[in-house]
């Protein structure tokens, strides 16, 4: 506030500033009650052991059990497999497609964009059901390959752990690449086309333009989509529950899926599940922090 401001308006302003809290309070209270408080609650729960609601405090017993739990280790490994394989491929594909479609003279540009965006209209459950039917042992892919005589017996897409993980990655790629592409397309509209014109005159190839202009100028949006997709992948649940139920064995299970299992499908072990949830929280926070640091330092 400037020193020139007369007393009365300053007082008035403070009064209206106080009214501002009324606008903010409903949202603040809800977020505190629905996010922060449950997080504290989850931590307290994670220090207790027992089944159902018979819980007693046992310190860090649940956390000590985690490293010895093979299912947890498998779920953790799978979750990171999805993260490391799916997120980079998806974001790179989305970027390249956006760069291709950014050309105003390109024919059928709107058509391509619409087609690539189409999968976003399906819910995660719907797209999991579609891909389940496509890749199941008597599904379309196997039927076609058999009809064409390319294979003699069905490929176990969903009953072999490695294949099943790949099918889940493919499903996610199908559903989310177009979604991320729209973010990049929106960002590219902000880049003056003269920048590309100048680069072309200087003899820069398409690949060079992509590396030296597109990627650096889109950095904030790339960072934003990376954080969003990392967060989403670490919580992967719908696809796994619908397509494989975590199987074969624990071959495709994710952390969210395992937490859901021990909370709602057998005798509930809230404390142990809460400890596991807390590890997801820590991972999301650490990864987001690293990504933001990397994003800032290169600016």
């Amino acid at each position, binding site marked *: 506030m400037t020193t020139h401001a007369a007393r009365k308006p300053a007082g008035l302003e403070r009064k209206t500033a106080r009214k501002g809290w*009324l*606008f903010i309070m409903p*949202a603040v209270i809800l977020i505190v009650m629905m*996010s922060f408080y449950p997080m504290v609650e989850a931590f307290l729960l994670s220090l207790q052991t027992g089944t159902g609601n018979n819980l007693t405090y046992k310190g860090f017993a649940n956390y000590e059990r985690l490293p010895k739990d093979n299912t947890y280790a498998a779920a953790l490994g799978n979750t990171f497999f999805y993260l490391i394989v799916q997120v980079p491929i998806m974001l790179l594909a989305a970027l390249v497609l956006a760069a291709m479609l950014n050309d105003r003279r390109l024919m059928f540009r709107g058509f391509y964009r619409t087609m690539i965006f189409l999968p976003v209209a399906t819910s995660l*459950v719907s797209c999991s059901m579609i891909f389940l039917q496509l890749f199941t042992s008597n599904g379309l892919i196997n039927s076609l390959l058999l009809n064409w005589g390319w294979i003699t017996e069905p490929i176990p897409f969903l009953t072999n752990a490695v294949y099943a993980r790949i099918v889940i990655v493919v499903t996610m790629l*199908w559903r989310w690449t177009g979604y991320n592409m729209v973010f990049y397309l929106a960002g590219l509209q902000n880049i003056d086309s003269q920048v590309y014109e100048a680069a072309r005159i200087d003899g820069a190839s398409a690949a060079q333009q992509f590396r030296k202009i597109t990627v650096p100028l889109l950095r904030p949006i790339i960072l934003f989509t990376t954080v969003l997709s990392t967060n989403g992948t670490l919580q992967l649940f719908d696809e796994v529950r619908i397509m494989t139920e975590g199987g074969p064995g624990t071959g495709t299970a994710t952390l969210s899926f395992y937490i859901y299992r021990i909370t709602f499908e057998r005798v509930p072990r*809230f404390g142990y599940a809460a400890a596991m949830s807390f590890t997801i929280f820590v991972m*999301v926070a650490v990864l987001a922090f690293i990504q933001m640091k990397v994003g800032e330092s290169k600016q």
Partner: protein
Amino acid sequence: MKKKRRLVIRPLRILKHLILILVSFVSAFPFYWMVSAATNNTADIILGHIAPGNYLLQNWRTLTESGRIGPAFYNSVRNAVLLTISSLFISSMAGYGFVIFRDKWKNRVMGILMLSMMIPPAATLIPLFRMFSQMGLMNTVLGFMLPSVATVFLIFMFRQAAQTFPQEIVQAARIDGLGEFRIFLKMFIPVMRPTYAAAAIVTFMNAWNSYLWPLVILQSPEQLTLPIYAGSFRGGYVLDYGAIMLVVTISTIPMLIIFFTLQKSFVQGILGSVK
């Protein structure tokens, strides 16, 4: 020189179109197949029949006989509409408040709220479930809505939008004696319609698609939603693929309509939120 340039560019153009055609095909085919399978019977689907068949009515009858598709559709629409309206109202009010009544304390509060973006829903699932079952919110729309009514993502989006809203309008309206809340209702909301449209699409899509939370909080059959209904076919003894794909198609149609009528404002709103 000119000739050489043409020779270099043309094959690249063709390659570009080939790639885009391939990607478009891969994107669109499962979609086409979903609709096509909804018109076929199980035997044809298993045989790898790709063309549309004439079993649509029979599949529809299978669904209506179970008597669940109607209620599931109604519940999904009701949940998503109620959540979208209340979420837009509460989050935009907060976004507006953070900008129009800016001060040091509110900035700090916003900073703290941003931290909640780090909290994954999977981590709060169990405490929320226990809290809501104690409060008697199981199997209620309110129980479904409460965890996602106020989201930092939307508040952030509206805060960005509110920064482009001219303060002079607010001051002029104050001099005219309009109350603060009326200024928000009568001035801000109409001007920010594109942002509201984008926020509505994102919120509606999330509510329409949500699966894990309804699975936990809406366990009674009367509260069945479309994703849970579609997902429930997974464990059945005899799978009626045609009927399943019809459910999946039905649950996709509303999203398609929304996307293609509001596509422009969706991109605009997304742009505004990342800027």
